[in-house]
């Protein structure tokens, strides 16, 4: 639990300053790419709260994202809420975050009765259930036609960039806090051995519920930002399976349970995605290569980049945080 070294603080500050200055030089396309990367980073960092710290594989992280996006967009389409002026944003934001947190807290009760594989399946069911609900509750959610954000409430990519950067920094900061606080210690204690954690007096259900709630709120915020920026959501965009499955892959690629793991994992996968889907004009579908890359990573670096031999060799004293 040592304090971060001066060099680490300097590098982090420099990176943040660089990210803050970036919109001044980037074209609008690249700004959007960066914005979407931050959205993914938020989901990945939140996913890692449950995987890296609590030891539960949550394949339903996208449910919080979709819930935030849907609640915000549905509320924005209510005429009386549109006329509240600046209060509108506050209300829809608060309502969407509260909805996600409440959903997480309610779902914690049945979900945490499950362990390992069954927890993973249970959480995966959640996103499929929400997807089916969004598809079928046409009058409320627009069904498969989706929902439009009223043009007056669009979020420009420039503003979205900074907001998403802020939420992403908060998410990574949260993981940093967890990596060196008593709360995080309690989480990791539960990860290592639930019986032992219980016997030293930790209230398991309380900590698990807390973990899933704090992992849900930033993801919902990412959902709101995404919906306001894209102006349109439908069940596939907001609640697609990849919203749930890519965060684990990104976290795993970087290394779970490390603060910087999700950051590097997200960066690498986003670079691969951008290169495969937008730059290489391949004669065959890009998804093929993307899939093969995931497969190769899973087989070759099982512990993720941050814990792999090559990165450990670079570090002076073997610490991975």
């Amino acid at each position: 639990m040592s304090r971060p070294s001066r060099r680490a603080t300097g590098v982090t500050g420099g990176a943040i300053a660089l990210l803050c200055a970036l919109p001044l030089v980037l074209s609008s396309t690249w700004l959007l790419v960066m914005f979407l990367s931050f959205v993914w980073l938020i989901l990945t960092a939140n996913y890692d709260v449950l995987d890296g710290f609590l030891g539960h594989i949550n394949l339903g992280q996208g449910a919080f994202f979709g819930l935030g996006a849907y609640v915000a967009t549905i509320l924005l389409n209510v005429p009386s809420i549109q006329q509240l002026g600046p209060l509108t944003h506050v209300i829809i934001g608060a309502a969407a975050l509260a909805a996600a947190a409440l959903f997480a807290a309610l779902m914690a009760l049945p979900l945490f009765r499950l362990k390992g594989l069954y927890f993973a399946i249970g959480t995966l069911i959640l996103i499929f259930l929400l997807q089916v609900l969004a598809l079928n509750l046409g009058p409320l959610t627009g069904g498969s036609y989706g929902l439009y954000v009223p043009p007056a409430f669009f979020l420009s990519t420039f503003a979205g960039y900074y907001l998403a950067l802020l939420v992403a920094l908060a998410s990574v900061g949260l993981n940093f806090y967890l990596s060196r606080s008593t709360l995080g210690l309690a989480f990791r204690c539960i990860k290592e051995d639930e019986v032992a954690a219980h016997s030293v007096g930790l209230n398991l259900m309380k900590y698990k519920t807390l973990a899933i709630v704090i992992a849900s709120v930033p993801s919902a915020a990412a959902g709101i930002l995404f919906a306001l920026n894209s102006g349109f959501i439908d069940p596939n965009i907001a609640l697609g399976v990849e919203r749930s499955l890519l965060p684990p892959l990104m976290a795993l690629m970087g290394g779970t349970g490390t603060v910087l793991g999700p950051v590097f994992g997200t960066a690498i996968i986003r670079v691969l995605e951008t290169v495969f889907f937008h730059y290489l004009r391949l004669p065959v579908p890009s998804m093929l290569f993307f899939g093969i890359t995931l497969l190769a990573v899973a087989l070759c670096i099982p512990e993720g980049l941050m814990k792999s031999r090559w990165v450990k060799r670079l570090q002076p004293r073997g610490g991975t945080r």
Partner: protein
Amino acid sequence: MARELELIISGVSLGGLYALVAFALSLTISTTRVLNVAHGVFFVWGGALFVIFSQRLKLHPALALVLLTACFFVLALLFQWGIVRSLLGRSTHRLLVGSIMATFGLGLSMESALGYTWVTFVDPYPVFTSPLAMFPVSLGGVSLSGSRLVILGFVLVMVTSFHLFLQKTFLGKGARAMAQNFDGFLVIGLNPYRLSMILFTLAIVATAISGAFYVLAVPLNPYEGLPLTLKALTVVILAGAVLGLAEVTTSQFLGAIWAPAVSLTILFLVLVLRPTGFFGKGVY
């Protein structure tokens, strides 16, 4: 009455196929702890290859099935050799995450490879179904779809042989031992790599053949594989026939759009109330 009987036959035959696919999936999960997300993709590939063999290459359906078995035998060996082997030695948590990630990547690339190949070389309309004409069978004044009966027969044969395999043969006993106590399995000197190879081969070949039978009755499209894995997981935990019946009756009374919601809700409730399934004793 005739309508109800038809509903039951189609529900049970469809549910039986789901059950078979799910059984194959659970056989591999419970023994090796490798969650094969690409399982459903093998099912879709089975259906697609069967249609290519029997429809495009004009082979006799029986010959097509034999060829199909041979193809998937090789694919399954590659799958085991390339992926499962390197996953097996990991700790439980890493094994689970690693297997989800690796097989998800494999599933994605297999799906897109099939979708692309189908649209480019076979048919611009990417839905496949088998051309075999099945005459309706009359049974006591009720006419039943012949292909559904063929499926039902196939399911009964496969379920019986899987049951006999697990109960009577040495390999089947080994598989049960591996599922019940992995350390004990190692202590008595059995080889997990060899057994997992056999089990994955069995599971993948059975799944692919089920896919071939499925397209006799219901059309498939190349991108149905990954959702199908979830459906199979539903069945691992539920009883397969229950799911088939629930889906068919929901489609009948509430409309087809609610069928997935009902099966997912049932799955979620069962998962929470009886985490090891209706009949499971809890291996984990």
